[in-house]
């Protein structure tokens, strides 16, 4: 297990290096002249441009700049915002908690809803619920999240006025120790539901497929024969095994989830990384855009690693490395 973990963690390095390189190429090589962006209104003065280049190290040859950039990355330095003039890492630290809260709420909602719907569908395949669940899966996969968010906002916030239109809420509790402000619950509902609908359909469909596949397995029959109640058989034996593909889909779809989070945050003015990215795009604040994207790439890759490790716990047949493999 340990060797497997170490090997997997080492395997992350090339992915992150490639992502960092692509980002570097596009931030510092392709677009005209970063010095002009930094200098802003004073960019017409050659003397100002010259001093900006010297200050930001933009007059060094490209390979030198690249190596310096990688060195900084290794030390956890993602550069400095052109506009806010503060480290990108500080911006990420400030805006990551809202994104994290939104993404986790959405995954929890999607899992709860998806597993429930999938179980209902599997209990009577071919029935009306079953058909609706399969429909929901394809609808969820086709839905532009940002538009769904707008429609839900129109209905539940503007027309029915059940929920606030946008924002994070200012009255949320502050978590002790880490100093993170929680959103007000009613502000969280619409963004989290919007984002959860991206995943819910595919989770429901996979739960259904998984339950049907294990439904005929002999170990379920064994468990029933030994006198386990049907609820126990379902929860402990059937559902646990049917959950394996559900965990997979969370890993596979995590990139779309993050993409959806960016759009959802923008629609609902949720003060997370997504909104930060969109604002930075509009202001051409490239270090912020690229730093946040690089950070989210790392998150995505780590989540996929975590998903692979979860298998070991969920599926007794899977063992990595070690002598336990049978």
């Amino acid at each position, binding site marked *: 297990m340990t060797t497997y973990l170490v090997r997997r963690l080492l395997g992350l390095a090339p992915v992150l290096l490639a992502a960092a390189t692509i980002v570097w190429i596009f931030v510092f090589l392709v677009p005209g002249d970063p010095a002009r962006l930094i200098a802003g209104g004073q960019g017409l003065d050659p003397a100002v441009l010259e001093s900006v280049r010297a200050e930001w190290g933009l007059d060094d040859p490209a390979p030198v700049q690249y190596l310096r950039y990688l060195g900084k990355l290794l030390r956890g330095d993602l550069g400095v915002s052109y506009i806010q003039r503060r480290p990108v890492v500080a911006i990420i630290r400030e805006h990551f908690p809202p994104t994290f809260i939104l993404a986790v709420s959405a995954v929890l909602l999607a899992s709860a809803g998806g597993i429930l719907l999938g179980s209902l569908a599997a209990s009577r395949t071919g029935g009306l619920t079953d058909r609706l669940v399969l429909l929901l899966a394809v609808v969820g996969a086709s839905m532009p999240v*940002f*538009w769904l968010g707008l429609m839900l906002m*129109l209905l539940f916030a503007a027309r029915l006025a059940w929920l606030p239109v946008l924002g994070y809420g200012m009255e949320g509790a502050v978590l002790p120790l880490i100093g993170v402000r929680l959103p007000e619950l009613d502000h969280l509902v619409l963004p989290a539901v919007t984002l959860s609908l991206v995943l819910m359909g595919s989770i429901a469909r996979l739960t259904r497929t998984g339950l049907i*596949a294990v439904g005929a397995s002999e170990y379920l029959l064994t468990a029933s024969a030994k006198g386990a109640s049907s609820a126990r058989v379902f929860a402990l034996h059937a559902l646990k095994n049917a959950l394996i593909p559900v965990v997979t889909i969370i890993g596979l779809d995590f990139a779309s989830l993050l*993409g959806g989070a960016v759009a959802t945050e923008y629609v609902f003015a949720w003060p997370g990384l997504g909104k930060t990215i969109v604002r930075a795009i*509009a202001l051409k604040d490239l270090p912020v855009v690229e730093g946040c994207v690089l950070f989210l790439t790392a998150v995505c890759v780590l989540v996929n690693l975590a998903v692979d490790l979860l298998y070991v716990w969920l599926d007794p047949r899977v063992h990595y490395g070690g002598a336990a493999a049978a």
Partner: protein
Amino acid sequence: MTPDTSRPAVSPFRSRSWFSLSLGIIIVAVFVLCAALAPALSRWVGYGPFDQVTPRSVIPPTPPDRDHPLGTDSLGRDLLVRLAHGARISLAVGVLAEIMALLIGVGVGALAGYAGGRADALLMRLTDLVFAFPAPLLALAVLAAVPDPESAAILKHLPQPSVGVVFLVLGCIGWAGIARLVRAEFLKIRELEFAQAARAIGARGARVVARHLLPNTLGPLVVAATLGVGGNILVEAWLSFLGVGARPPLPSWGTMVTEGQAYFLARPWVCVAPGLAIFAVVLGFNLLGDGVGALLDPRRRSAPA
């Protein structure tokens, strides 16, 4: 997978796959028709996607009425005409990006799957790398850094640089899944008798691949490509919505939703129509892909999957 014995083997699934397939074909055909007829529509009504059609005495956006069935946007442009022209952008980006992904993906996958050994290991390492990226985010980062495509040396010869760069980026990112699929299919079939027979009578590698192996992977490829077109359209809309895809005044559906967002709660029709169009066309491609997949997969015809 164990067949579900509690139900009749064929009935529910077969009907559903036909339903998906026919509904998918209808939806996709309607949008292809819209895209093809958009210029004719403009000629017929007498204005294009960039023309102000509201009289000077009213302040747009105006709600749907007899002359403008979907209403107008904040610059007084007819939404139906813009929507029809937007179909051209969505379909072009979706299909062209998928063709590019297919070219790269089939090339890489076929080479890896047929050659095996070192080349296979190397190419699959590369594929895994691309596959591990959160593709939409990477596209966002790359596109945000292309300041204005109209002035970039390599892009300015494209008919619509800001749309062209989107399809290039999506194509460059989207091939990994195709490569994996083609390689996996090749590994399954390259040692089957027909491939061995072709080699035994002296066919060269390229001929075996092109004439014998590739045609046998066509089914799964068609399914993957159809779903891929839908995915590309969705990502293009998302990128345009975030302001890095098609630039205004182009009538990309994602851009149209952004434009309507500012006054959305008071004048929702500006956002509703383009968003619905995105949803419908992607749904069409997904249904089509699912339907074709179900028809081609003999196991799924009898067992629910």
